[in-house]
């Protein structure tokens, strides 16, 4: 049995987590804006930004769903060590990580209730790259319009149409991330 490498977390946990959260807040409050979160070296296939989000937001009070090839021992052990979280099926997830296809269908994740819309999952989607082009975004956080290379406009528009229910997204590629809350209108 090989010894799992558990290094690569925040070097200065309180300050690093504060900075990572601030970037996440900026990204979700300004859908389409691409921000950088660096300084973390997680085991593959976790990227730096995805890992920083998880280390900033996840602990034993919430549970993660690892989708597809993200569900592997090195990732589990690294996240368990750094966050103390539980790993759960999609239906019980507070957070989920995976590539877009691995996370589908979105309907398997909690989407909140009319009285408690916040009881919903946040999905961290691993992408090859992020660019400010492609799907047109508008709504809260966006002055007039923004663009982001979304993987599937139709499915995401359907999620937005459920507002105030629905799931929220962080799209990540390496150390980059962009937010897409359920409040964002997608398309023209």
């Amino acid at each position, binding site marked *: 049995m090989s010894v799992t490498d558990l290094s690569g977390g925040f070097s200065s946990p309180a300050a690093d987590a504060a900075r990572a959260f601030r970037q996440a807040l900026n990204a979700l409050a300004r859908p389409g804006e691409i921000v950088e979160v660096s300084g973390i070296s997680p085991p593959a296939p976790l990227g730096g930004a995805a890992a920083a989000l998880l280390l900033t937001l996840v602990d034993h009070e919430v549970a993660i769903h690892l989708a597809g090839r993200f569900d592997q021992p090195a990732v589990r052990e690294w996240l368990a060590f750094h966050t103390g979280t539980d790993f759960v099926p999609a239906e019980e997830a507070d957070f989920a990580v995976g590539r877009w296809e691995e996370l589908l269908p979105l309907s398997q994740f909690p989407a909140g209730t009319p009285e408690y819309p916040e009881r*919903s999952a946040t999905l961290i989607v691993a992408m090859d790259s992020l660019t400010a082009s492609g799907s047109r975004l508008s709504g809260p956080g966006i002055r007039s319009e923004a663009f982001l290379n979304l993987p599937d406009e139709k499915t995401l528009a359907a999620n937005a149409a459920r507002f105030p229910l629905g799931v929220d997204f962080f799209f990540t590629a390496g150390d980059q991330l962009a937010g897409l809350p359920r409040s964002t209108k997608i398309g023209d």
Partner: protein
Amino acid sequence: MSDYNFAYLDEQTKRMIRRALLKAIAVPGYQVPFASREMPMPYGWGTGGVQVTASTLVPEDVLKVIDQGADDTTNAVSIRRFFEVTAGVETTTEVPVATLIQTRHRVPETPLTEGQIIVYQVPIPEPLRFLEPRETETRKMHSLGEYGLMHVKLYEDIARHGEIATTYAYPARVSSGYVMDPSPIPKFDNPKLDHSPAIQLFGAGREQRIYALPPWTSVQSLDFEDHPFDPSRADGECALCGSKDSYLDEVITDDAGGRMFICSDTDYCARRSEGAA
């Protein structure tokens, strides 16, 4: 204070608050419940705002704290000092320099800019609370978008007084969705919330609620076609800087009832006075 973590709160608490903040951003105007902690200052004195600020601050921030528009009111001094000691952040009184502003009861006169965050201290986050004291009921009303009661109340004001008698904590509708309490700011400040370039976060510690407005979000004060919203202010000008547009405090100057008006926003007033000199 080395016994305490950066910005006082433990990391576990910050994570819980940060999760709530992101949900609040994702559902603008909706009040997200959070497990507010006991803070070393009393409930009702800004514990919600302090917890939101503590969870949002980064070491590089420049913090401004105001109460009633002023940097030097005792509670503003106390909260600013708390963060100077626990987070070691730089503080300022100048709006353009601040990256994060915590406020009670005012929005600065100087327009906020992109990249800034403003944190409001909120005593009663529920705009429907004085019409319906039960949380179980108001929660249902929000989920159904059932705001008729609020309109009835405002309309009764008009019938009785000829105008809407709510002058602060004036309810507003967010992105045509939830009705929110803008905190007890004078209604004069309500228009500043609408399509603000800044991120606006609201923390109610005792009531355990966080809500938020992303930048460029529509925030419309409730009104009627025949009685449009009127962000009134005292007629008069500031005795110090001469401003005719800012929100004014009335100061009693002698026993005979003499009074003068001065800007409630001390930073705005001071910089105008300096500029004029």
